[in-house]
């Protein structure tokens, strides 16, 4: 039944389980291409509602050191946009049911071909696309393709968006990604104090679920934003946990132990929502 719905509907449905949706971000190909596929399944088992799959890029402008390092490692395995889409297809073939949103910078999309990306997303079972360096003003063409292929382009809104909040929130499809603080992705010890005010404003305009990301690394932080959002995204903190477990993950004999560490971390992240 899942396939008759549009990507936007599948994404929205992932938020309606009655609790705040947990959205992990992983980099395709990190720590290795094969392990990424198994990680996705482990994250699903540990309660992920939706998966953000990052395409490694040589010049990730919106990412902090953790995701930069993960990207560089994945690139060393030759994982680019094509391989990332293949990995998504592998995840589906091995039982991944939750919606997948592909996170990529604009340049790989332009070189690979915008339409080709959507065609291969469709074939691989990827439900939506998020491009951090493509503000709505530059997104017309991709938005048209998103419509045509029923796979929404996910927009981001930031505390500095100010008068742009209404324009972006009303144009949002699938879900709206709220950047929780200024800066690039990465672990922070504290969240911005003006965050709740900002989230309240965003929700006022958004007709789709609202998820908060950038800098969320603990269950406490997730619970702080819980009453103002429908979901939270964890990327860098998760990649750091993966890095910690990497020696275990790379050894077939201890691999399960590695996944247990990650699942425990992820369950703990969701423990207060």
């Amino acid at each position, binding site marked *: 039944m899942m396939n008759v719905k549009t990507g936007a509907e599948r994404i929205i449905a992932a938020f309606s389980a009655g609790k705040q949706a947990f959205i992990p971000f992983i980099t395709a190909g990190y720590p290795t291409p094969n392990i990424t596929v198994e990680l996705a399944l482990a994250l699903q088992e540990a309660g992920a509602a939706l998966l953000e799959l990052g395409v490694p890029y*040589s010049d990730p*402008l919106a990412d902090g050191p953790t995701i930069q390092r993960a990207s560089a490692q994945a690139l060393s395995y030759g994982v680019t946009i094509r391989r990332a889409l293949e990995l998504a297809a592998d995840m589906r073939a091995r039982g991944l049911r939750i919606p997948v949103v592909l996170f990529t910078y604009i340049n790989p999309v*332009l*070189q690979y071909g915008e339409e080709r990306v959507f065609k291969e997303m469709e074939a691989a079972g990827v439900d939506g696309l998020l491009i951090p360096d493509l503000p709505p003003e530059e997104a017309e063409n991709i938005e048209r393709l998103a419509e045509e292929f029923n796979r929404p382009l996910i927009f981001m809104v930031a*505390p*500095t*968006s100010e008068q742009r909040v209404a324009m972006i929130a009303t144009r949002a499809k699938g879900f709206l990604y709220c950047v929780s603080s*200024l800066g690039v992705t990465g672990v922070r010890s504290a969240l911005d104090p003006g965050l709740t005010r900002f989230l309240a404003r965003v929700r006022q305009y958004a007709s789709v679920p609202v998820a908060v990301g950038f800098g969320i690394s603990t269950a406490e932080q997730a619970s702080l934003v819980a009453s103002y959002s429908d979901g939270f995204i964890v990327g860098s903190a998760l990649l750091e946990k993966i890095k910690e477990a990497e020696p275990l993950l790379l050894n077939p004999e201890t691999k399960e132990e590695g996944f247990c560490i990650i699942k425990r971390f992820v369950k703990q992240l969701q423990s207060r929502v």
Partner: protein
Amino acid sequence: MSRVQLSKKSKGRFGAFGGRYVPETLVNALDELEAAYEEALYDKTFQEELAELLQRYCGRPTPLYFAERLTEKLGGARIYLKREDLNHTGAHKINNALAQGLLAKRMGKREIIAETGAGQHGVATATVAARLGLSCKVFMGEKDMERQKLNVFRMELLGAEVVPVTSGTRTLKDATSEAIRFWVGNVDTTFYIIGTVTGPHPYPQMVRDFQRVIGDETKMQMLEQERRLPDYIVACVGGGSNAMGIFYPFLEDNDVSLIGVEAAGQGLETKKHAATLTKGSRGVLHGTMTYLLQDEFGQIIEPHSISAGLDYPGVGPEHAYLRETGRAEYRAITDEEALAALRLLCREEGIIPALESAHAIAEAVKLAPTLAKDQVIVVCLSGRGDKDVTQIYEREGRKC
């Protein structure tokens, strides 16, 4: 004389190129910058302060110098040099850094950041920050810091903090990415002085407008000295700010041929070059749609040039547009040709050009003998070569 004028073109696009490909966090800051910049262009106080500093602090106008012995030696067209090397801090970079520094002050921003490759834009920005009483952070690739130790020290002497960049290839491209990342996190208090005609709108247009003083002066001086416009203008292109600055006032003078010179490095047939317009393809880097050196999956390829200032995998979007419309032509000069031209200019004219500018000289050396003796070439001598002397010494020893 150095009055900046607003371009007539529409916002942010040069044909298909330009635009604003940045994280949402920055969009509002770019809108604010654009508004402040347009306001400053029509503000007499701003214009007067800028003109005053360009004249008394930087030493403008720079001379348009007839290179008599070089002309004789080549036996063709008359060669003039626009002496941007005689600016304070030794290159055209100060024109833009000073104007943006004044703009930062006007917008109430006390902290300045900049990226730098060889260190020329970093030194210019550190200089301006000191002069205007602003704090300054310069992002520089670790590899470039090793190659340009003296410029690092220079910036520190001027009170700037040099932030080593360890990501990616540890060169200019990564320093730019890191400066943008820092800006994303500190956009409320920080002004980012981009050193060339690239980046998200309004930077390509703004930097060009702050550099057009080179072309405006050239035009006036040419009319005074030769009573005519030049047949050719030749300038080196990395990001392309000196070229855009000298080209821009001549865009509508269709009899003036504009030639941009890229770095062919170890040769266009090798992978070791930085000839973005000659060998690259369309794409987005550092917030703008332009030409890039990239692979089929959109990953950026590391460029190579003997000259750190040309060692960049992108190029200003307006150059991409001028190439596409055919208004300007882009050629490429190898490391060896640039070195030979540097030596020639030292011997014939007593001028040590920057390795960047030596690429433009090398093109003029090829071009002049093919032209008639009554034709005129203007070469933009964008910077002086003192910064490169150690590098050349280490490369070739005392052999001259």
